[in-house]
């Protein structure tokens, strides 16, 4: 009769890191669906490419590091990273963009720092920024929503563009991006930014075809999708409420102040919330626990800082969207934030409290 010896507690709530990761991956589905609906197959192809590359990279590095492969390979973190990267890439970027990005994210940003739990930066965002800096052309060729395209793009067309650069009919990405009226279409954020430099007011920019009725054709729905997924995660307590809430609030407050001061040169708060990668960032990227702050207070600070940075970069920076840069900057600040937001231990520093 063998007696089983274990350390207390003997009970566990039975959640696992891998199931947590899986849950987050599932929660991206509404957003990805909206992406597919408005922008076609591009991102789905990139997601698949990135996931494949990530798994290969993870496997290779784990094998090289003599780690147990199966549990870590399928802990879901690599897949999640790849999915997030695939979502954030331009839909018609060449195939090697997602492959390089994914390899970079896993092999360098994650595993080189010691693997899961040790990476100081969010791998997906680090890879995104690396790609944006290294391949600015490919990384800014955003595909306009399908409804605005002059031609019809099928799955086969998308595949051909991603792998060869041209559709079977011989159109290049640039040609695809061209509006019926003959101008190249950009993302709503881009549009507003460019128009601002052209001396147009925000209200005038809002007339652009890419923006449509609300805050950007398709983009608003994608953001709504990610918001839905995020709320689902919050409901499941898979992510802490503090980071997204403080991030969104901070972005809201910043844009609101700016809008109040000068409505002509500043987009509305809702425009900030529902364009670009705001919702994806709020619920899926800055909530990455590994590279974020740990305590509740720390997370509030972390989220607020990220919101502020997103606004500042969108407003004054050279890049159209800012989530990736803001997240990386906050990652750097996270240890410091943690240091200064240590909770007061029970029974300590009681006088200070009074």
């Amino acid at each position, binding site marked *: 009769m063998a007696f089983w010896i274990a350390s*207390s*507690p*003997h*009970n566990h709530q039975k959640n696992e890191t891998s199931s947590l990761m899986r849950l987050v991956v599932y929660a991206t589905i509404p957003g990805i669906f909206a992406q597919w609906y408005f922008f076609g197959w591009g991102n789905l192809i990139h997601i698949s490419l990135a996931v494949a590359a990530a798994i290969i990279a993870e496997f290779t590095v784990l094998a090289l590091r003599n780690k147990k492969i199966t549990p870590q390979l399928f802990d879901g973190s690599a897949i999640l990273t790849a999915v997030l990267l695939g979502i954030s890439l331009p839909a018609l970027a060449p195939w090697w963009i997602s492959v390089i990005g994914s390899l970079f994210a896993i092999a360098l940003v994650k595993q080189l720092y010691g693997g899961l739990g040790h990476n100081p930066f969010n791998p997906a965002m680090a890879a995104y920024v690396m790609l944006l800096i290294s391949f600015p052309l490919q990384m800014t060729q955003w595909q306009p929503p399908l409804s605005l395209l002059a031609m019809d793009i099928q799955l086969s067309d998308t595949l051909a563009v991603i792998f060869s650069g041209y559709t079977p009919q011989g159109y290049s990405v640039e040609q695809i991006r061209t509006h019926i009226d003959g101008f190249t279409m950009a993302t709503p954020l881009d549009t507003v930014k460019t128009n601002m430099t052209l001396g147009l007011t925000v209200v005038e920019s809002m007339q652009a075809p890419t923006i449509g009725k609300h805050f950007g054709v398709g983009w608003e729905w994608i953001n709504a999708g990610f918001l839905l997924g995020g709320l689902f995660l919050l409901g499941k307590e898979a992510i802490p409420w503090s980071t997204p809430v403080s991030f969104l609030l901070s972005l809201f407050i910043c844009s609101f102040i700016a809008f109040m001061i000068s409505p002509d040169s500043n987009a509305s708060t809702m425009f900030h919330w529902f364009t670009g990668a705001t919702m994806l960032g709020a619920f899926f990227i800055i909530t990455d626990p590994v590279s974020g702050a740990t*305590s509740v207070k720390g997370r509030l600070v972390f989220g607020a800082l990220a919101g502020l940075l997103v606004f500042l970069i969108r407003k004054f920076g050279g890049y159209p969207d800012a989530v990736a840069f803001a997240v990386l900057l906050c990652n750097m600040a996270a240890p410091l934030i943690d240091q200064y937001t240590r909770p007061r231990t*029970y*029974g300590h520093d009681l006088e200070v409290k009074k």
Partner: protein
Amino acid sequence: MESVIERIERGSFWQFHGGIHPPEQKFLTCTKPIASAQIPEQLIIPIRQHIGQAGNLVVKVGDKVLKGQILSACDSPMSVPIHAPTSGTITAIQSMAIPHPSGLSEACIILTPDGEDTWKQRHICPDFHLLSKIQIIEKIANAGISGMGGAGFPTQVKVSTLAKIDYLIINAAECEPYITADDLLLQEHSPTILDGIKIIDHLLSPKNILIGIEENKTEATDALKKATADIDHIKICVIPTKYPSGGEKQLIKILTGQEVPSGVLPSSLGMVMQNVATCFAIADAVINDTPLIKRVVTISGQALEKPQNVWALIGTPVGFLTRQCGYNNSKNRHLIMGGPMMGFSLPHDQIPVIKTTNCILAPSEIEIASPFSSTSSKEVECIRCGQCADVCPAQLLPQELQWSAKAKDQAQLAKLNLFDCIECGACAYVCPSQIPLVHYYRVAKAEIRQQKLLDIKAEKAKVRFEARKQRLEREKVARAEKHKKAAEARKARMNTDTSAAKSEKSAVADALARVKAKKAQASIKQNTAENDSEDATTTTTTTSAAESSNTSTVDITVESVAAVDDGKSQVANAIARAKAKKLAQKNQAQIDSLDTLQNNESPSSLTSSQAAPVVIDRKAKVAVAVAKAKEKKRQASAANSPSSQVDIIDTATKALKPNAVNLDSVSDDKATQAIDKKAKVAAAMVKAKAQAKMKASLGTETSFNNLEKSTTNLESNIDLGATSECDVPAQVKNVEAAKTKKTQGEPQTVSNIDTKNLDRKTKIAAAIAKAKAKKLAASSDKSPTSE
């Protein structure tokens, strides 16, 4: 601001940080009555069942004891007595595994019950108000009551506190899953518990009595409410169910909103907390004179057929209780003492129930497949999700603690307040990476405690070492002082008492003489094979002499500068002897002997100065021996040589003898003797020289050659020895000079310092002369016809 009581009456409470809601599983046992106690075949009663020292045993093996009889007496407030749970015989007192997370073994009394369960004499006291407070506290102390909720803090210490108590808090929260022992006790014995509360109330007179109970115990709450309905200052506080609200600090926070400062007892805040079961035991002890010999234990878990609460005698082996409840899980058993959150696995089922045991958990494998057991651990890296920090009731940062614990960073652990961790297990319960956090903390805590012990030990050792160093230093100073005095005395003696000085000097001369003699012997040896054995003996003697002389040499060098001269000559002696040996035994042997000299140095430096006379004494004897040996040899080999030569050598030998005698004793008479001896030596020398000159017209050159050779050797020897910077070459020159002087027959001038040198020189010269003579004799031996 509204008072605590008002708030409580309104039914709103404070919250402690964090907390979790693990599945309660209390339904398994909470509706079944407490089964009565059964007597097992054997009781194992650990002598120490609480925090504090063990009491002194008052029984021995073979004793017959009655139920309730005291087994160990307490002599300090922190020790708690134990009692016989039933009548029977003490069959052994030995070290057994006790209920402890580490599977510790401690002294236990083994009681074999006789089955009759005969009580000792008891004095029932129906009204405790008739007793004085002191008497009540004494009764509580003698009943062996210690906290029955968890840690086992001696109860009499708590109830005899002198602090002014505002709140007496009765802990009926029982937040651990599965456990219903207190719940059932309340359901069945509320009046007795209330009696216990009243006794504590009587002792401490608190302003308010708060009974904290989780809202999931409706029946117990009702029973309590009924029992306390007419008592105004007892408040039943039904608190939200949340683990670990039953923790002392957490319950205080919930009920009063105050936090107990770290490292301080709640009594300093005017609060005392007692567990429900402890209240019951107090009532039993004070009113029924029944010591703490049994308690309610929840036997639960899905591996049991009929999980229930039982009255268990203290000391009942766990296996007996689980069998009583139909435990039949034969393979891969897992027994937990305590609840699933804070309990610990038992190594086997012969672990006894003790005063703090509130639950035995026998889970099925599906029920609790502990993720933290070594076999099924799925631990992955911490993802910094922070969930652990969210639930930690002590508001610690479990993830950072975990990193520091893994890195063994004790300073950082202290900064993160590791010791405020109550090991509730909430963090590990929620950790998605399934890190056995509490295990890491336990190990780290143990290491830090260990380190503290070591530090204390090291500190003690350091103090001891410092003391020793100081003592040695003092002794060294004292010794140096003594040596200095001795040296000064010696110097004074040298300067004033010529005879003593001379005697010392003569020792030098003797040694040199011996060197020469040996050289002569060696040359004889070359020709005379049969003398080998004798020679070997002499060599041995010389070596020992060299060693001892070295001893004194070093010692004298240490003593003072004044004696350096003396030391020098002795070093020279030693070297000379070594050289003689070399001549006898070839170069190899010489190096050996020098090695010996050097090796002997360090130990000898510590020898006290008293050794010197002995050494001299020995030297003299050696000299005598050598002289005798020489004589013998001479006699043996010079069978054909002329008698005049023998005569001369005889005289020389005789001249040496008084020297030896002279060295043996230090008498006032020495002056005369020394002079006498000197005269004799001189005479012998003159004679020898004369004879040598006369007789050895042929051998003169050879002998001088030999002398020169020996001088060169002496010089090189000194270089090799290098023990002191004595000016031996100069001395050798002196020897030569003296030789000339002597042959010229110059009289000895007497001036205190000069005498020293001259005296020595003359003697050396004499010795050389003798040696020469011998050599001549030897060469004449070689060619006896020359005479």
